[in-house]
């Protein structure tokens, strides 16, 4: 008798679950727009994937709380769907297809180039198009000539140039490299070598190491430091980069460090519990130091909501999600992806009075116009924080940007290298 009731209970539960799922599915297309997110959400890069998605989620929650977006007089709210891809290209593509088939997601975020590239092979397939919201600084992504691309952070060549010029100004001439392995690290090394040697400097050692699997960098560091460099180009994910700094100092190195843009100064300081070892470091600005009015309030809001450190990843994804929402409003559609992509220029500017990172526009190839902010650490303290405008042709245009922007440090003009 007891068994019978149990079986009956199970069936009822199953039925409830099924009908629940069914009503959900039916209600979705009416006024809900699903935004996809595929990234590493487990494994060594899980932390990074989480930082990124928090930004998107926070923006979506805010937009929904304010009543959603209005497209042609109709209200829409967003729903975030996230799937883990463990940086596996096949899984990422499968996830993307699922977002399209199941939820008709018009846009998908992904913060890893290794999995963005294969997704860009399928995002223009007829009937299954989606906008690729790519968080990657590699110049290769815009070279792919994808019509549905939105690349969020600045091209890292801007950083190569800005960082090298700064180190050069400090009198560094001999540089050694202990950078992470992989396509992104290889490109960075090549770009840095090219620019540094063009300036007349020398590369004394090139000893890449795997930042994703190693924790002991003494071997390549010892070899690199034996060449007595003035400056060391290092970087990969922030946590192992912190170890590289600590181990280089432990080996008696007293020179400076240039951090490739994946590694973040503030995150490293957090891991090293202070900036004692970080003298003469050049890298991407600490997010809390970005000189726009909304940066501080975002920082507070974010840390209160997620109980974790604010990062560039979170702040940029947050602003980019707003840009996407505004592009939909401007395009007058939530489903015609080509129209939404074409309306992106109308979504900008997103300024520092409301957003933690200022975005001024988007290039034809799909790169968002975002000033590159460069930080130096001197005498154990954050020192200079420079913002470079890289997408204009002349100083005069920078003046116009200064007029609309809310940044409270002077924006500097940078002529991009060819």
């Amino acid at each position, binding site marked *: 008798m007891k068994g019978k009731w149990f079986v009956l209970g199970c069936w009822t539960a199953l039925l409830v679950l099924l009908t629940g799922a069914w009503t959900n599915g039916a209600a979705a297309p009416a006024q809900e727009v699903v935004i996809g997110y595929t990234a590493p959400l*487990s*494994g*060594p890069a*899980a*932390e990074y994937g989480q930082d990124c998605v928090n930004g998107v989620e926070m923006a979506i929650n805010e937009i929904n709380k304010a009543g959603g977006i209005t497209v042609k007089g109709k209200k829409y709210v967003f729903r975030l769907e996230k799937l883990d891809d463990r940086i596996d290209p096949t899984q990422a593509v499968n996830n993307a297809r699922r977002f399209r088939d199941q939820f008709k997601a018009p846009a998908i975020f992904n913060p890893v180039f290794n999995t963005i590239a294969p997704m860009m092979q399928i995002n223009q397939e007829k009937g299954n198009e989606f906008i690729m919201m790519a968080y990657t600084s590699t110049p290769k992504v815009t070279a792919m000539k994808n019509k549905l691309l939105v690349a969020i952070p600045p091209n890292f060549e801007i950083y190569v140039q800005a960082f090298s010029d700064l180190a050069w100004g400090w009198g560094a001439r001999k540089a050694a490299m202990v950078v992470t*392995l992989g396509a992104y690290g290889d490109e960075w090394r090549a770009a840095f070598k090219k620019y540094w040697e063009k300036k007349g400097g020398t590369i004394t050692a090139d*000893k*890449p*190491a*795997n930042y994703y*699997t*190693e*924790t*002991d*960098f*003494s*071997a*390549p560091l*010892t*070899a690199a430091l*034996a060449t007595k460099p003035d400056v060391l180009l290092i970087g990969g994910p922030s*946590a*192992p980069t912190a*170890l590289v700094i*600590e*181990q280089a*100092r*432990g*080996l*008696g190195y007293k020179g400076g460090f240039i951090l490739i843009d994946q590694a973040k100064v503030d995150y490293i300081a957090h*891991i090293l*519990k202070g900036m004692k070892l970080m003298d003469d470091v050049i890298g991407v600005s600490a997010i809390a130091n970005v000189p726009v009015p909304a940066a501080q309030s975002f920082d507070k809001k974010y840390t209160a909501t997620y109980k974790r450190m604010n990062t560039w990843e979170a702040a940029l994804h947050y602003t980019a999600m707003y840009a996407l929402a505004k592009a939909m409003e401007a395009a007058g559609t939530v489903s015609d992806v080509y129209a939404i992509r074409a309306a992106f220029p109308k979504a900008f500017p997103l300024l520092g009075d409301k957003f933690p990172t200022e975005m001024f526009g988007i290039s034809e190839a799909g790169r968002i116009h975002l000033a590159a902010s460069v930080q130096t650490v001197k005498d154990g303290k954050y020192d200079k924080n420079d913002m470079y405008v890289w997408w204009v042709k002349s100083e005069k245009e920078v003046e116009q940007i200064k007029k609309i922007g809310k940044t409270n440090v002077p924006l500097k003009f940078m002529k991009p290298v060819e």
Partner: protein
Amino acid sequence: MDLFLQQVFNGIMLGSTYAIVALGLTLVFGILNIPNFAHGHLYMLGAYICFTLMTRLEVGFWTALIVSTLALGVIGVVVERLVYRPLKDQPHINSFISAIGALMILENGVMAIWGPQGQRIPNPYPEPLEILGIVMTQQRLLLIGVTVTLILLLQLFIKKTTLGSTIEAVAQDSEGAALVGINVNRVSSLTFAISTAMAATAACMIAPIFIITPSMGALLGMKAFIICILGGLGSIPGAIVGGVILGLMEALGGGYISAAYKDVYAFGALILILAVKPTGLFGRKEA
């Protein structure tokens, strides 16, 4: 020359950690005749216990090290009881599967409690020292000192005490040992306790230098396994020499050739040794 010495020092530091983890693995192999695949994960757990003691309870480094070592000794006994002993008379494959289950529980359990991100133990002795042109931090020097002491103590224990020699007796012939009145089950527990406690000490010593993550045990466990095969499974000198050889290979190969292929050296050496001397460097021929 300085560069060479520096790389040798780096290699010895790495190698002494490898040696001590491999030693634990080889001891257990001697008793159970199966490699404890969860060994690397128990090492990882040792590091996390040390981390929690130091950052949450704010105890000193040495207290944390001792508590973590003792705790892992107890956990080692529990693992032996639950994971291996019930399968003692079963085919070896059952123990393998059970071991893999244990390592998954450990890794995912740690991930559930402490999260997937890397954690940092504050380095108690970060100051660099310079000796004969080699620069090292005190923590690295201490690590070598502690591991060498542990290895010596273990040797003394096995060779000079009655309790210790029961381990050797069981390893050589468990039936014979049982016949002369040695409690094989107790020896088995004791061996597990020593093996995991040593791994915990190594983990606590190395944690302040590196970052601890739930996946840190997997690669180290694999390397310890390679070292045991390299030195001869079940051989104590084999584990020590194998550990140091592997450490030196990684440091010199990483410094002079390329760090990109660091793991290739370990696995390449394994294939080479097995091709030339299938029993390992110090391995005995099967009778």
